[in-house]
Protein backbone atom coordinates (compact mmCIF):
# COMPACT_ATOMS: atom_id res chain seq x y z
CA UNK A 1 0.00 0.00 0.00
CA UNK A 2 1.18 3.49 -0.65
CA UNK A 3 1.70 5.83 2.22
CA UNK A 4 -1.32 7.89 1.36
CA UNK A 5 -3.42 4.77 1.40
CA UNK A 6 -2.05 4.00 4.85
CA UNK A 7 -2.99 7.40 6.12
CA UNK A 8 -6.47 7.13 4.74
CA UNK A 9 -6.86 3.63 6.10
CA UNK A 10 -5.69 4.73 9.50
CA UNK A 11 -7.95 7.74 9.69
CA UNK A 12 -10.91 5.65 8.61
CA UNK A 13 -10.05 3.05 11.21
CA UNK A 14 -9.85 5.71 13.87
CA UNK A 15 -13.13 7.20 12.76
CA UNK A 16 -14.74 3.80 13.12
CA UNK A 17 -13.05 3.13 16.43
CA UNK A 18 -14.15 6.50 17.76
CA UNK A 19 -17.60 6.12 16.32
CA UNK A 20 -19.07 8.47 18.90
CA UNK A 21 -16.91 11.31 17.66
CA UNK A 22 -18.35 11.09 14.21
CA UNK A 23 -21.84 10.65 15.53
CA UNK A 24 -21.53 13.72 17.72
CA UNK A 25 -20.98 15.99 14.74
CA UNK A 26 -24.10 14.62 13.15
CA UNK A 27 -25.97 14.83 16.40
CA UNK A 28 -24.90 18.39 16.95
CA UNK A 29 -26.22 19.28 13.53
CA UNK A 30 -29.54 17.60 14.15
CA UNK A 31 -29.97 19.14 17.58
CA UNK A 32 -29.03 22.60 16.55
CA UNK A 33 -31.45 22.60 13.66
CA UNK A 34 -34.20 21.21 15.86
CA UNK A 35 -33.56 23.77 18.59
CA UNK A 36 -34.46 26.68 16.38
CA UNK A 37 -38.16 26.07 16.17
CA UNK A 38 -38.07 25.92 19.96
CA UNK A 39 -36.22 29.19 20.29
CA UNK A 40 -38.02 31.10 17.55
CA UNK A 41 -41.56 29.83 17.82
CA UNK A 42 -43.70 27.66 15.62
CA UNK A 43 -44.99 29.98 12.85
CA UNK A 44 -44.70 27.96 9.61
CA UNK A 45 -44.11 31.01 7.45
CA UNK A 46 -41.21 32.22 9.55
CA UNK A 47 -39.75 28.73 9.71
CA UNK A 48 -39.96 28.28 5.97
CA UNK A 49 -38.22 31.59 5.38
CA UNK A 50 -35.38 30.86 7.74
CA UNK A 51 -35.07 27.13 6.98
CA UNK A 52 -32.27 27.14 4.37
CA UNK A 53 -30.27 29.69 6.31
CA UNK A 54 -30.53 27.78 9.55
CA UNK A 55 -29.59 24.48 7.92
CA UNK A 56 -26.59 26.01 6.29
CA UNK A 57 -25.41 27.82 9.37
CA UNK A 58 -25.82 24.62 11.35
CA UNK A 59 -23.83 22.63 8.80
CA UNK A 60 -21.14 25.27 8.89
CA UNK A 61 -20.89 25.23 12.66
CA UNK A 62 -20.96 21.46 12.85
CA UNK A 63 -18.18 21.24 10.33
CA UNK A 64 -16.20 23.83 12.22
CA UNK A 65 -16.52 21.98 15.48
CA UNK A 66 -15.29 18.76 13.98
CA UNK A 67 -12.20 20.58 12.76
CA UNK A 68 -10.63 20.30 16.18
CA UNK A 69 -10.20 16.60 15.52
CA UNK A 70 -8.47 17.00 12.19
CA UNK A 71 -4.93 17.35 13.52
CA UNK A 72 -5.14 17.76 17.27
CA UNK A 73 -4.78 14.11 18.20
CA UNK A 74 -1.95 13.55 15.73
CA UNK A 75 -0.23 16.59 17.11
CA UNK A 76 -0.55 15.60 20.73
CA UNK A 77 0.82 12.10 20.30
CA UNK A 78 3.61 12.98 17.93
CA UNK A 79 2.24 11.37 14.77
CA UNK A 80 2.21 14.70 13.01
CA UNK A 81 5.91 15.06 13.65
CA UNK A 82 6.39 11.71 11.95
CA UNK A 83 4.28 12.84 9.01
CA UNK A 84 6.46 15.87 8.53
CA UNK A 85 9.44 13.58 8.43
CA UNK A 86 7.98 11.15 5.98
CA UNK A 87 9.04 11.02 2.37
CA UNK A 88 5.66 11.93 0.86
CA UNK A 89 4.56 15.48 -0.01
CA UNK A 90 2.94 17.03 3.02
CA UNK A 91 0.28 18.74 0.93
CA UNK A 92 -0.87 15.37 -0.35
CA UNK A 93 -1.02 13.98 3.15
CA UNK A 94 -3.12 16.93 4.17
CA UNK A 95 -5.43 16.32 1.26
CA UNK A 96 -5.80 12.66 2.17
CA UNK A 97 -6.59 13.48 5.76
CA UNK A 98 -9.10 16.16 4.79
CA UNK A 99 -10.80 13.75 2.41
CA UNK A 100 -11.31 11.13 5.09
CA UNK A 101 -12.39 13.77 7.53
CA UNK A 102 -15.02 14.95 5.12
CA UNK A 103 -16.16 11.44 4.37
CA UNK A 104 -16.49 10.48 7.99
CA UNK A 105 -17.90 13.58 9.60
CA UNK A 106 -19.53 15.70 6.95
CA UNK A 107 -20.99 13.38 4.39
CA UNK A 108 -23.44 11.89 6.94
CA UNK A 109 -24.54 15.38 7.75
CA UNK A 110 -25.16 16.22 4.12
CA UNK A 111 -27.23 13.08 3.73
CA UNK A 112 -29.22 13.98 6.82
CA UNK A 113 -29.97 17.54 5.72
CA UNK A 114 -32.99 16.87 3.47
CA UNK A 115 -34.72 15.09 6.31
CA UNK A 116 -34.26 18.09 8.55
CA UNK A 117 -35.31 20.42 5.80
CA UNK A 118 -38.72 18.74 5.91
CA UNK A 119 -39.11 20.07 9.46
CA UNK A 120 -39.01 23.57 8.06
CA UNK A 121 -41.50 22.84 5.32
CA UNK A 122 -39.08 23.12 2.41
CA UNK A 123 -40.28 21.87 -0.97
CA UNK A 124 -38.84 18.88 -2.79
CA UNK A 125 -36.91 21.04 -5.23
CA UNK A 126 -35.46 23.11 -2.46
CA UNK A 127 -34.36 19.97 -0.66
CA UNK A 128 -32.52 18.79 -3.75
CA UNK A 129 -30.75 22.07 -4.17
CA UNK A 130 -29.95 22.11 -0.46
CA UNK A 131 -28.29 18.71 -0.62
CA UNK A 132 -26.39 19.59 -3.74
CA UNK A 133 -25.18 22.87 -2.33
CA UNK A 134 -24.03 21.15 0.85
CA UNK A 135 -22.28 18.49 -1.20
CA UNK A 136 -20.30 21.15 -3.01
CA UNK A 137 -19.86 23.49 -0.08
CA UNK A 138 -18.88 21.31 2.83
CA UNK A 139 -15.56 20.14 1.31
CA UNK A 140 -14.61 23.79 0.95
CA UNK A 141 -15.41 24.26 4.61
CA UNK A 142 -13.20 21.32 5.55
CA UNK A 143 -10.31 22.53 3.46
CA UNK A 144 -10.44 26.14 4.55
CA UNK A 145 -11.00 25.06 8.12
CA UNK A 146 -7.90 22.92 7.97
CA UNK A 147 -5.84 26.10 7.67
CA UNK A 148 -7.24 27.39 10.93
CA UNK A 149 -6.90 24.04 12.61
CA UNK A 150 -3.25 23.70 11.64
CA UNK A 151 -2.31 27.22 12.65
CA UNK A 152 -3.75 26.85 16.12
CA UNK A 153 -2.21 23.47 16.93
CA UNK A 154 -0.92 23.26 20.44
CA UNK A 155 -2.40 26.57 21.43
CA UNK A 156 -4.71 26.09 24.34
CA UNK A 157 -8.18 27.27 23.52
CA UNK A 158 -7.26 26.62 19.95
CA UNK A 159 -10.73 25.25 19.37
CA UNK A 160 -12.37 28.58 19.73
CA UNK A 161 -9.52 30.48 18.16
CA UNK A 162 -10.03 28.36 15.07
CA UNK A 163 -13.57 29.55 14.77
CA UNK A 164 -12.47 33.12 14.98
CA UNK A 165 -9.93 32.64 12.22
CA UNK A 166 -12.06 30.52 10.00
CA UNK A 167 -15.60 31.85 10.22
CA UNK A 168 -14.95 35.04 8.26
CA UNK A 169 -13.50 32.87 5.51
CA UNK A 170 -16.56 30.63 5.55
CA UNK A 171 -18.93 33.46 4.72
CA UNK A 172 -18.83 33.27 0.93
CA UNK A 173 -19.65 29.56 1.08
CA UNK A 174 -22.51 30.25 3.42
CA UNK A 175 -23.89 33.03 1.28
CA UNK A 176 -23.82 31.08 -1.94
CA UNK A 177 -24.98 27.88 -0.28
CA UNK A 178 -27.98 29.34 1.46
CA UNK A 179 -28.51 31.63 -1.51
CA UNK A 180 -28.81 28.66 -3.85
CA UNK A 181 -31.73 27.26 -1.88
CA UNK A 182 -33.40 30.65 -1.62
CA UNK A 183 -32.97 31.23 -5.32
CA UNK A 184 -34.57 27.91 -6.11
CA UNK A 185 -37.54 28.48 -3.80
CA UNK A 186 -38.12 31.92 -5.29
CA UNK A 187 -37.98 30.39 -8.76
CA UNK A 188 -34.81 32.12 -9.90
CA UNK A 189 -32.86 28.93 -10.56
CA UNK A 190 -29.89 27.89 -8.49
CA UNK A 191 -27.39 27.17 -11.28
CA UNK A 192 -25.50 30.40 -10.82
CA UNK A 193 -24.97 29.86 -7.12
CA UNK A 194 -24.09 26.22 -7.53
CA UNK A 195 -21.51 26.89 -10.19
CA UNK A 196 -19.87 29.50 -7.99
CA UNK A 197 -19.77 26.95 -5.19
CA UNK A 198 -18.11 24.57 -7.62
CA UNK A 199 -15.56 27.20 -8.50
CA UNK A 200 -14.83 27.81 -4.83
CA UNK A 201 -14.33 24.08 -4.38
CA UNK A 202 -11.80 23.89 -7.19
CA UNK A 203 -9.99 26.91 -5.82
CA UNK A 204 -9.89 25.40 -2.35
CA UNK A 205 -8.65 22.06 -3.65
CA UNK A 206 -5.81 23.76 -5.47
CA UNK A 207 -4.75 26.32 -2.91
CA UNK A 208 -5.42 25.11 0.60
CA UNK A 209 -3.34 21.92 0.91
CA UNK A 210 -0.13 23.86 0.37
CA UNK A 211 -1.20 26.53 2.83
CA UNK A 212 -2.05 23.90 5.40
CA UNK A 213 1.27 22.16 4.86
CA UNK A 214 3.06 25.44 5.45
CA UNK A 215 1.00 26.08 8.55
CA UNK A 216 1.81 22.65 9.92
CA UNK A 217 5.51 23.23 9.47
CA UNK A 218 5.18 26.54 11.26
CA UNK A 219 3.26 25.01 14.12
CA UNK A 220 5.70 22.17 14.66
CA UNK A 221 8.86 24.26 14.56
Amino acid at each position, binding site marked *: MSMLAWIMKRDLLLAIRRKSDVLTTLFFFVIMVSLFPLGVGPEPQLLKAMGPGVLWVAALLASMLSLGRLFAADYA*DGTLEQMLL*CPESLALIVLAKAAIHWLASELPLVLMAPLLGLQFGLSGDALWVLTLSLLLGTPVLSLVGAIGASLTLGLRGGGVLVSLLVLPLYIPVLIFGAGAVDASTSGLGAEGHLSILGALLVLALLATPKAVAAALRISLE
Partner: protein
Amino acid sequence: MFEATRLECMRGDSRLFSEVGFLLEPGGLLHVRGPNGSGKSSLLRMLCGLILPEAGEIRWNGVNIRHSHDYNRALTYLGHLNGIKEELSGLENLRINCGLAGFDISEETAIDALERIGLDGREHLPVNVLSQGQRRRVMLARLLVARTPLWILDEPLVALDADAIGLMRSLFELHLENGGMLILTTHQELEIAAGVAQEIRFFS
Protein backbone atom coordinates in the same frame (compact mmCIF):
# COMPACT_ATOMS: atom_id res chain seq x y z
CA MET B 1 27.41 10.20 5.37
CA PHE B 2 25.79 12.58 7.80
CA GLU B 3 27.41 15.83 8.65
CA ALA B 4 26.61 18.94 10.62
CA THR B 5 28.67 22.09 10.80
CA ARG B 6 28.64 24.97 13.24
CA LEU B 7 25.03 24.54 14.28
CA GLU B 8 23.49 27.14 16.49
CA CYS B 9 20.17 27.01 18.30
CA MET B 10 18.20 29.81 19.92
CA ARG B 11 15.38 29.13 22.33
CA GLY B 12 13.47 32.07 23.69
CA ASP B 13 16.08 34.58 24.69
CA SER B 14 18.96 32.29 25.18
CA ARG B 15 21.43 30.61 22.90
CA LEU B 16 21.18 26.94 23.74
CA PHE B 17 24.28 25.94 21.84
CA SER B 18 26.47 27.10 19.03
CA GLU B 19 29.37 25.79 16.97
CA VAL B 20 28.15 22.22 17.22
CA GLY B 21 29.35 19.97 14.45
CA PHE B 22 30.15 16.33 13.71
CA LEU B 23 30.72 13.90 10.89
CA LEU B 24 29.04 10.51 11.03
CA GLU B 25 30.15 7.69 8.74
CA PRO B 26 28.31 4.41 8.25
CA GLY B 27 28.63 2.40 11.43
CA GLY B 28 29.08 5.56 13.45
CA LEU B 29 27.46 6.19 16.79
CA LEU B 30 26.93 9.66 18.17
CA HIS B 31 26.01 9.89 21.80
CA VAL B 32 24.62 13.27 22.83
CA ARG B 33 25.02 13.81 26.55
CA GLY B 34 24.26 16.57 28.96
CA PRO B 35 22.13 17.48 31.93
CA ASN B 36 18.41 18.27 31.76
CA GLY B 37 17.59 21.25 29.64
CA SER B 38 21.00 21.51 28.04
CA GLY B 39 19.67 21.21 24.52
CA LYS B 40 19.88 17.55 23.56
CA SER B 41 16.32 17.22 22.35
CA SER B 42 16.60 20.50 20.53
CA LEU B 43 19.70 19.32 18.70
CA LEU B 44 18.04 16.06 17.71
CA ARG B 45 14.94 17.80 16.41
CA MET B 46 17.16 20.15 14.49
CA LEU B 47 18.98 17.23 12.90
CA CYS B 48 15.62 15.90 11.75
CA GLY B 49 14.72 19.20 10.16
CA LEU B 50 11.92 19.94 12.64
CA ILE B 51 13.71 23.05 13.93
CA LEU B 52 15.53 25.37 11.57
CA PRO B 53 19.05 26.09 12.73
CA GLU B 54 19.88 29.69 13.52
CA ALA B 55 23.20 29.17 11.80
CA GLY B 56 25.10 26.26 10.34
CA GLU B 57 24.22 23.46 7.99
CA ILE B 58 23.17 19.82 8.13
CA ARG B 59 24.12 17.64 5.19
CA TRP B 60 23.05 14.16 4.20
CA ASN B 61 25.43 12.66 1.66
CA GLY B 62 26.69 16.14 0.96
CA VAL B 63 23.29 17.75 0.33
CA ASN B 64 21.67 20.13 2.78
CA ILE B 65 18.76 18.25 4.30
CA ARG B 66 16.39 21.05 3.46
CA HIS B 67 16.93 20.33 -0.20
CA SER B 68 17.60 16.65 -0.01
CA HIS B 69 14.95 14.38 -1.44
CA ASP B 70 15.97 11.13 0.11
CA TYR B 71 16.84 12.32 3.59
CA ASN B 72 13.38 11.66 4.94
CA ARG B 73 13.50 8.19 3.42
CA ALA B 74 16.74 7.46 5.22
CA LEU B 75 15.68 8.70 8.63
CA THR B 76 13.88 7.17 11.58
CA TYR B 77 13.27 9.57 14.44
CA LEU B 78 11.70 8.59 17.73
CA GLY B 79 11.22 11.34 20.27
CA HIS B 80 9.69 11.94 23.65
CA LEU B 81 6.23 11.51 22.19
CA ASN B 82 5.08 8.05 21.35
CA GLY B 83 3.33 8.74 18.08
CA ILE B 84 0.85 5.98 18.77
CA LYS B 85 -2.91 6.08 18.88
CA GLU B 86 -4.51 5.10 22.14
CA GLU B 87 -7.58 3.56 20.52
CA LEU B 88 -5.73 1.33 18.11
CA SER B 89 -4.05 -1.93 19.00
CA GLY B 90 -0.31 -2.32 19.14
CA LEU B 91 -0.43 -4.28 15.91
CA GLU B 92 -2.40 -1.64 14.04
CA ASN B 93 -0.19 1.08 15.40
CA LEU B 94 2.97 -0.64 14.30
CA ARG B 95 1.75 -1.42 10.80
CA ILE B 96 0.38 2.05 10.31
CA ASN B 97 3.49 3.76 11.64
CA CYS B 98 5.61 1.75 9.26
CA GLY B 99 3.24 2.56 6.43
CA LEU B 100 3.55 6.24 7.24
CA ALA B 101 7.30 5.97 7.29
CA GLY B 102 7.18 4.67 3.75
CA PHE B 103 7.51 0.91 4.03
CA ASP B 104 4.82 -1.73 4.22
CA ILE B 105 5.05 -4.66 6.55
CA SER B 106 2.83 -7.68 6.57
CA GLU B 107 0.74 -8.66 9.54
CA GLU B 108 3.05 -11.59 10.28
CA THR B 109 6.13 -9.41 10.32
CA ALA B 110 4.41 -7.00 12.67
CA ILE B 111 3.22 -9.69 15.05
CA ASP B 112 6.67 -11.19 15.01
CA ALA B 113 8.27 -7.85 15.86
CA LEU B 114 5.85 -7.20 18.70
CA GLU B 115 6.52 -10.65 20.05
CA ARG B 116 10.26 -10.12 19.96
CA ILE B 117 9.90 -6.86 21.86
CA GLY B 118 7.97 -8.59 24.59
CA LEU B 119 4.37 -7.85 23.78
CA ASP B 120 3.25 -11.34 22.87
CA GLY B 121 -0.36 -11.88 23.71
CA ARG B 122 -1.00 -8.17 23.79
CA GLU B 123 -0.81 -7.36 20.08
CA HIS B 124 -4.53 -6.86 19.83
CA LEU B 125 -5.13 -4.87 22.99
CA PRO B 126 -5.85 -1.17 22.50
CA VAL B 127 -2.79 0.76 23.57
CA ASN B 128 -4.55 2.71 26.29
CA VAL B 129 -4.74 -0.30 28.56
CA LEU B 130 -1.04 -1.03 28.27
CA SER B 131 1.48 -0.03 30.89
CA GLN B 132 3.88 2.85 30.40
CA GLY B 133 6.73 0.58 29.40
CA GLN B 134 4.56 -1.44 27.07
CA ARG B 135 3.52 1.68 25.23
CA ARG B 136 7.12 2.64 24.68
CA ARG B 137 7.76 -0.85 23.37
CA VAL B 138 5.00 -0.51 20.80
CA MET B 139 6.75 2.59 19.56
CA LEU B 140 10.20 1.03 19.63
CA ALA B 141 9.03 -2.08 17.77
CA ARG B 142 9.40 0.00 14.65
CA LEU B 143 13.16 -0.22 15.00
CA LEU B 144 12.96 -3.99 14.65
CA VAL B 145 11.56 -3.72 11.16
CA ALA B 146 12.98 -0.39 9.95
CA ARG B 147 15.60 -0.60 7.28
CA THR B 148 16.60 3.04 7.35
CA PRO B 149 20.30 3.80 7.69
CA LEU B 150 19.99 6.71 10.12
CA TRP B 151 18.31 6.43 13.50
CA ILE B 152 17.83 9.44 15.72
CA LEU B 153 16.52 8.42 19.12
CA ASP B 154 15.65 10.77 21.95
CA GLU B 155 15.81 8.88 25.25
CA PRO B 156 14.63 5.55 23.90
CA LEU B 157 15.22 3.81 27.22
CA VAL B 158 12.73 5.78 29.29
CA ALA B 159 10.28 3.56 31.20
CA LEU B 160 11.87 0.34 29.94
CA ASP B 161 12.86 -2.47 32.29
CA ALA B 162 16.24 -4.14 32.30
CA ASP B 163 15.29 -6.86 29.81
CA ALA B 164 14.02 -4.38 27.31
CA ILE B 165 17.13 -2.24 27.70
CA GLY B 166 19.25 -5.29 26.95
CA LEU B 167 17.20 -5.95 23.86
CA MET B 168 17.59 -2.39 22.67
CA ARG B 169 21.32 -2.51 23.21
CA SER B 170 21.74 -5.58 21.05
CA LEU B 171 19.49 -4.03 18.45
CA PHE B 172 21.67 -0.91 18.34
CA GLU B 173 24.78 -3.03 18.02
CA LEU B 174 23.30 -4.98 15.14
CA HIS B 175 22.29 -1.77 13.41
CA LEU B 176 25.78 -0.34 13.71
CA GLU B 177 27.42 -3.55 12.55
CA ASN B 178 25.24 -3.48 9.47
CA GLY B 179 26.59 -0.05 8.61
CA GLY B 180 23.77 1.99 10.10
CA MET B 181 24.23 5.26 11.91
CA LEU B 182 22.82 6.05 15.31
CA ILE B 183 22.34 9.31 17.17
CA LEU B 184 21.16 8.86 20.69
CA THR B 185 20.52 10.56 23.99
CA THR B 186 19.94 8.88 27.28
CA HIS B 187 20.48 9.66 30.93
CA GLN B 188 21.04 5.99 31.73
CA GLU B 189 24.30 4.19 31.28
CA LEU B 190 24.43 2.23 28.06
CA GLU B 191 27.52 0.42 26.76
CA ILE B 192 27.34 -0.14 23.07
CA ALA B 193 30.09 -2.46 21.92
CA ALA B 194 30.01 -1.78 18.20
CA GLY B 195 30.58 0.97 15.71
CA VAL B 196 32.75 4.05 15.99
CA ALA B 197 31.54 6.07 18.91
CA GLN B 198 31.66 9.83 19.23
CA GLU B 199 30.21 12.01 21.87
CA ILE B 200 28.80 15.51 22.07
CA ARG B 201 28.58 16.78 25.58
CA PHE B 202 26.48 19.77 26.57
CA PHE B 203 26.91 21.69 29.76
CA SER B 204 24.05 23.59 31.26
